[in-house]
């Protein structure tokens, strides 16, 4: 993003303390510049720029095929982009350029400091192993071996996701869609990631279940200081979750800003069309 804006006119302050915001001293969790990632030279996303800070949720909205999911894959280096840079403020090593990281380090980041939540829980969970094992898997991947500890952590996260700890040994296949999505969150958050990528996390759920999941997600972002990028086609999800929103069309960001400003005063023709298409409940 741009350099800190200086107050124009430069009127000297007559009194009052200096209020340089502390969070601007910390580097953004994710800094993306000029990112282009296409599958065939045409389809994908182009020239994407944004910063994301701790405690911030950024929603990416747009129709299917607008490049939203490609963007997520490029940001997390699952599908390395053709051009542009992604800098990530790692807990262990400070700011790193993802292009310069060896595969081993990228995989480790993906298992520890990042979380991934898929639209279809089948893609984000292992359906054949128990809920408890799903949650404990990431802890084991970072070297925790104590069975009792793993089980306690798993039970804790199940309850935090408002599920009965007695379901610890059941497989996700026996869970409802909403429970499966909550289990995905638990599985991801157990290693306290800094950054979570979510691809249409509520799209497969009933409306009544969506509200609960969104509310849980809101609370977690606040409590844990997470940074999250949420791809959605649902503007109500953006309104509830995200301070900032990117509107994508044809692989490009056509509008970016505060979520409430984009929804209440959309500037781009496409955003105006999206907003005017919301059903009034």
């Amino acid at each position, binding site marked *: 993003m741009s350099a800190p804006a200086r107050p124009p006119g430069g009127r000297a302050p007559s009194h009052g303390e200096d*209020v340089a915001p502390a969070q601007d001293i910390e580097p953004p969790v994710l800094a993306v510049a000029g990112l282009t990632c296409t599958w065939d030279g045409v389809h994908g996303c182009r020239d994407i720029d944004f910063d994301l800070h701790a405690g911030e949720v950024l929603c990416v909205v747009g129709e299917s095929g607008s490049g939203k999911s490609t963007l997520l894959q490029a940001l997390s280096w699952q599908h390395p982009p053709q051009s542009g840079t992604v800098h990530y403020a790692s807990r262990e090593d400070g700011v790193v350029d993802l292009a310069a990281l060896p595969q081993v380090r990228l995989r480790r980041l993906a298992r520890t400091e990042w979380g991934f939540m898929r639209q279809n829980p089948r893609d984000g969970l292992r359906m054949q192993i128990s809920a408890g094992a799903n949650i404990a898997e990431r802890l084991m991947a970072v070297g925790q071996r104590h069975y009792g500890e793993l089980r306690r952590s798993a039970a804790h996260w199940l309850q935090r996701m408002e599920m009965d700890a007695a379901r610890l040994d059941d497989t996700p296949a026996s869970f409802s869609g909403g429970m499966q999505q909550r289990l995905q969150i638990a599985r991801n958050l157990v290693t306290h990631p800094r950054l979570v990528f979510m691809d249409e996390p509520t799209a497969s759920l009933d409306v009544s279940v969506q509200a*609960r999941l969104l*509310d849980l997600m809101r609370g977690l972002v606040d409590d844990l200081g997470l940074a999250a990028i949420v791809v959605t086609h649902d503007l109500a999800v953006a309104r509830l979750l995200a301070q900032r929103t990117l509107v994508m069309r044809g692989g490009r960001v056509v509008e970016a800003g505060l979520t409430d400003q984009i929804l209440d005063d959309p500037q781009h023709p496409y955003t105006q069309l999206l907003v005017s298409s919301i059903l009034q409940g």
Partner: protein
Amino acid sequence: MTVDTTMIEVRGLGKRFVLHNQGGATLPVLHAVSFEAARGECLVLDGASGAGKSTLLRCLYGNYLASEGSIRIRDGGQWMDVVQADARRIQRLRREVIGYVSQFLRAVPRVPALDVVAEPLRRRGLAPSRARERAAGLLARLNVPERLWRLPPATFSGGEQQRVNIARGFAAGHDILLLDEPTASLDAGNRDVVARLIRETAAAGCCIVGVFHDEIVRAAVATRMIDVAPLVPEQGA
């Protein structure tokens, strides 16, 4: 000059809406609006319905993008132009400096009224218990029955929801408060409570800018009025 207590300085503000999906129709709403507001004032925006009073408030809050001009806000020892500021600066401004009370509460599912009111304080870094204490004080003052505090406001009556909304707006102790018809859905008794709260908050040094249709409230709270008339150039300056 004495100590400058100006908190808001608006110069040449214009706002028009371009409706791209209606053949690019342009709706001019505000033109060349200039004014200042200082600590201790309750500035009431006057003007016919549709003159753009709410639009002006929303521009001040960064909810609408101004088409031209500047909106400078005092943030502690600095000035910030809302029209030029990026999203993060506006977020910061909303957390630390400017509060906004709309006509209706936008209820978040499952969050209890007490936490809805305490949230802006928690965002400013106050401990949860202290934030809830202040929230409880405001809810009590606004006659929201204590049995409702632990419940999410979605099921409350319109008047109760609105009093939760007002409590939330006043909770954080912001330097600037923008009020968009906060008393529209309230009965006479609660309307008077809110009017007193507004007067006291201004007297304590807050800078308040508001829109009130209700004559009684307007008379009770206004320290100054300005006319918002679209497409009439400013006088003097």
